[in-house]
């Protein structure tokens, strides 16, 4: 039980098998993983190695075939749908590779969106959203719609939204995949900054070597198995 409080994420013997017609695709096989609080962890591996599957399972967007997954002390593999939605709303921030934002809402409204669902009062959420947008370097662009922002700016809004309500965990699936290397590097610096400034655990995936170098812990996946777990610096 002690581990649970130390670790934001705990996986025990997690496997995921997709069945396509008669063929079983073993996307993840017997994964054991502890992610301590405030960790800044990278999932790496070639395309198809199971990075997205792992992130989706941790985020409760999909369920494991077998095994236990605990996030912030809650068994996400067992939670009913409604509870899972609540867990995501309050404890987990997501950053996807693209199309993270709601097109009809402005940057600041996208950031406020989650807080609005949480029921945070208008004035408070406006202030927090302005604050975090400044922190991610988007001051002055608050009222732009996603279509009026560059890819890098959109990802920054997504990061701002993921972090603004101080979740326990941020999951970012290839957040830099659609960005040029300079923009990708800036975004990673932002993530590092967020990880140190806010009390949040980060798990992100990439197959870009330079992006991996920002991590403090690098996990290599191959064919759905962890083949390497490396602490850095």
């Amino acid at each position, binding site marked *: 039980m002690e581990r649970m409080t130390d670790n934001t994420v705990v996986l025990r013997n997690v496997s995921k098998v997709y069945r396509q017609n008669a063929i079983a695709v073993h996307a993840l096989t017997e994964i054991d993983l502890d992610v301590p609080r405030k960790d800044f962890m990278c999932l790496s591996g070639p395309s198809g190695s199971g990075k*997205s599957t792992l992130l989706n399972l941790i985020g409760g967007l999909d369920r494991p075939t077998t095994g236990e997954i605990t996030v912030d002390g809650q068994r996400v593999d067992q939670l009913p749908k409604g509870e899972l939605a609540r867990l995501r709303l309050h404890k987990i921030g997501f950053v996807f590779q693209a199309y993270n934002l709601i097109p009809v*809402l402005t940057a600041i409204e996208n950031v406020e969106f989650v807080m609005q669902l949480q029921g945070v009062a208008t004035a408070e959420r406006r202030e927090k959203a302005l604050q975090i947008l400044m922190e991610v370097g988007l001051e002055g662009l608050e009222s732009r719609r996603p279509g009026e922002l560059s890819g890098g700016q959109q990802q920054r809004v997504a990061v701002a939204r993921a972090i603004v309500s101080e979740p326990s965990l941020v999951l970012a699936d290839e957040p830099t995949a659609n960005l040029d290397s300079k923009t990708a590097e800036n975004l990673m610096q932002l993530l590092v900054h967020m990880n140190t400034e806010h009390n949040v655990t980060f798990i992100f995936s990439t197959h870009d070597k330079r992006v991996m170098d920002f991590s403090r812990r690098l996990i290599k996946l191959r064919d759905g198995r962890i083949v390497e777990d490396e602490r850095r610096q």
Partner: protein
Amino acid sequence: MLRAQPLLLTLAWRNLWRHRGRTAAILFALALGIWSMVALAALSRGSLEGQLQKAIGNLTGHIQIHARGYRDDPAIDHRMPAPDAALATALTDPSVRVWAGRVRVPAVIASERESAGVTLVGIEPQREQGLSFIGTAVTDGRYLESPGDTGLLLGRKLAERLETALGRRVVVMSQDVKNQVGDRGFRVVGIFDAEPEAIETAFVFVGRATAQEMLGMGDTLSEISLRSDDRNRLEVPLSTLRTVAPSLDIEPWTVVEPLLTLTEKIVNVILVIWYAIVFAAMSFGLVNTLLMAVFERTREFGLFQALGMPPRHILGQVLVESLILLAIALVIGNLGALATVHALRDGLDLSAFAEGMEYFGVSPIIYPALSVGDVTMANTLVAVLGLVASLYPAWRAARHVPIEAITRV
């Protein structure tokens, strides 16, 4: 849910602006449907009202009193005595606005050239004013001056048919109280116009005393017709009259003219069918539009789910979108219908399309009549059933979106 309402409203509203053309098209279709529902209701209600008023004005009145048997066989044998003291008092009750006693028997009218079967009506000219059409229908010559007037009023159409004219003499024959044919010559003192035209050939009018004398009726009558204040609230005068004259046949217009009540029912059925057709078309368009919007936003709904938005909010968002569409369409459609009714306040003349209809008592000029009931019914139907129909697309949106839909680039 309440907390999220401004958010849902914002999302729904802005999403409607995403495809202006499509939103405008569905709004137009919905508004057109509502317009057609309300406008058609006003027109058919107006037409019905016109028919009712005309029928009531064409001698029926609100309540008729006869001797028993007259309505089955309107012959001179089924005559009734002049009102006794009790009935006369009851007829002075404030609930009776106007009343008149009439002689009304089958007769044959003949000119030098032609003859025709008609109903001979003996009237008290002053009392018919405000009671039936004849008080104001004479357009050539003069109206009758007293019950003892020896002139005759002839419908324009009948005058043509008899090839006679104002100032000429005609002979009227009818069975008298002794079962003998009584006849009498009359001078045509007035020509009347009436709608429907059938009235012009159906009735000829003479002074009541003259008719009574011609047929040997003394002071007996064929019918008493009266008007109250509201044709739909006749229970009180009916029961008063029936109490004082239990031996007489006293019936409201709904019984005397069962066809009118039937027409009203038919109009209601036609309206309901029309509402159903229009609504089916409207909801089909609405559901299609919403489904299109939902399908192209699958990724967004997936994103909502990933971010922890409860499915009921997603459902709510689509319903709010539908509600906004419906509300705007209702406003436009109703305003359009109001404008139409206002534009047609001087009557919609269908005579070009409706020759012959007139003969059967359907006026070719319709004065639209908006009824609160019809408008409420159309609006409620569209709003409530529209929302119910939107539940399906909303449910499609709120269903679990496979994770690939969100993460696929």
